[in-house]
């Protein structure tokens, strides 16, 4: 068991006088969406960290001594994340000093000389700092930090957009929702995204090609559609036969209703369609849009077919959304 100390016996300290790189998208460190301070005195490692940070959209500043690191922090901080290698002489003291300045500063402590996090005993001030034992995890840690940052920066409209979209997506699941709410679906989408930051995680990774809201919308769509698919999956009876203790084969189909809509369900669906259409008896444009959507016609084709302008179409869809959400103010 080793304690985090301010110096590392095995490290060779070479001053890395790397210039600070151009911040991504021409932003300055203070205006950039995501920023990082790297305190590292090993030039190749610094270069590696900078490359990954740049790939993940972070504008980074570097320091190869703790004095320079503290000066940069006090001049340009706080940063989205501060990365300190404990091998840098005084590194741990620097991390503690930064935490004293700003207790909520997110921090990664690089401790490559340890085999596991358990071997590292951290000072109380750094108890919640992330440890970077395996350099391969750096990308994942940044992705995780990015998600926190994005959640913090989601606007009111973004959050409402996600919530409304989730509600409709669940309604679209129909019986396959099995009690799931829009809030549950949103939570599952985020959980899956967080899972994607794990090494070998099975979740859905968020890449830089799309913004966070679009990503979550896509994940919700994907979760809903796989849920629907699995609900609709057809099994052969022989695949699900089970034997009881006496060796009698029993089929779960004896107790579970078929996934296919039966006559009652078919009637319910028809009634639902009729109910929805009935809500818009006084809105001819909405009726036309509904008819088009029910038939699976594309937006442009609906407009063309029924002679609707963009404005009429948008207004009709808005009306449908509001009425179907069922909570319109009187």
């Amino acid at each position, binding site marked *: 068991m080793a304690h985090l100390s301010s110096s590392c016996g095995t490290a060779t300290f070479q001053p890395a006088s790397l210039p600070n790189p151009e911040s991504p998208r021409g932003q300055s460190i203070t205006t950039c969406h995501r920023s990082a301070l790297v305190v590292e005195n090993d030039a190749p490692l610094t270069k590696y960290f900078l490359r990954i940070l740049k790939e993940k959209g972070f504008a980074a500043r570097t320091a190869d001594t703790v004095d320079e690191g503290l000066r940069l922090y006090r001049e340009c901080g706080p940063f989205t994340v501060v990365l300190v290698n404990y091998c840098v002489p005084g590194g741990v003291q620097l991390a503690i000093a930064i935490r004293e300045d700003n207790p909520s500063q997110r921090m990664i402590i690089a401790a490559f000389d340890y085999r596991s996090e*358990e071997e590292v005993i951290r000072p109380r001030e750094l108890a919640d700092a992330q440890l970077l034992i395996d350099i391969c995890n750096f990308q994942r840690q940044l992705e995780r930090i990015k998600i926190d940052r994005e959640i913090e920066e989601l606007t009111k409209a973004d959050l409402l957009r996600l919530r409304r979209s989730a509600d409709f997506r669940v309604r679209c699941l129909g019986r396959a929702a099995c009690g799931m709410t829009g809030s549950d679906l949103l939570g599952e989408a985020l959980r899956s995204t967080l899972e994607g930051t794990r090494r070998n995680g099975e979740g859905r990774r968020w890449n830089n090609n799309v913004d966070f809201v679009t990503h979550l919308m896509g994940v919700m769509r994907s979760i809903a559609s796989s849920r629907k698919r699995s609900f609709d999956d057809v099994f052969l009876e022989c695949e699900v036969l089970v034997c009881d203790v006496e060796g009698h084969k029993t089929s779960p189909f004896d107790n579970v209703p078929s996934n296919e809509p039966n006559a009652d369900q078919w009637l319910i669906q028809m009634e639902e369609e009729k109910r929805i259409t009935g809500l818009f008896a006084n809105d001819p444009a909405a009726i036309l849009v509904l008819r088009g959507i029910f038939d699976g016609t594309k937006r442009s084709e609906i407009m063309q077919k029924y002679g609707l302008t963009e404005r009429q179409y948008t207004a009709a869809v808005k009306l449908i959304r509001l009425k179907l959400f069922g909570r319109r103010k009187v």
Partner: protein
Amino acid sequence: MGDKKNRDERVQELYNRLADSILELSDEAVIAEVSETDSDPQEEAELVRMAFKEECKQFDLAERRCTTEPCSIRKREASNG
């Protein structure tokens, strides 16, 4: 049977389209639309953000448990001889 399936899909298609249509709305339009319902947009938005933060917290806790569990298991195994 095809007709039955199709009937089921028609209503789903509607809700799917409505879910997608929200992405096309401007920020002002989304907020205005929520205001037209019984909900308070500010309150509703903050509830979503809080739920997200809670989800992250739970995920991190589970992560930490994952990294510490093997050690506890090893300790338990050692103490059991």
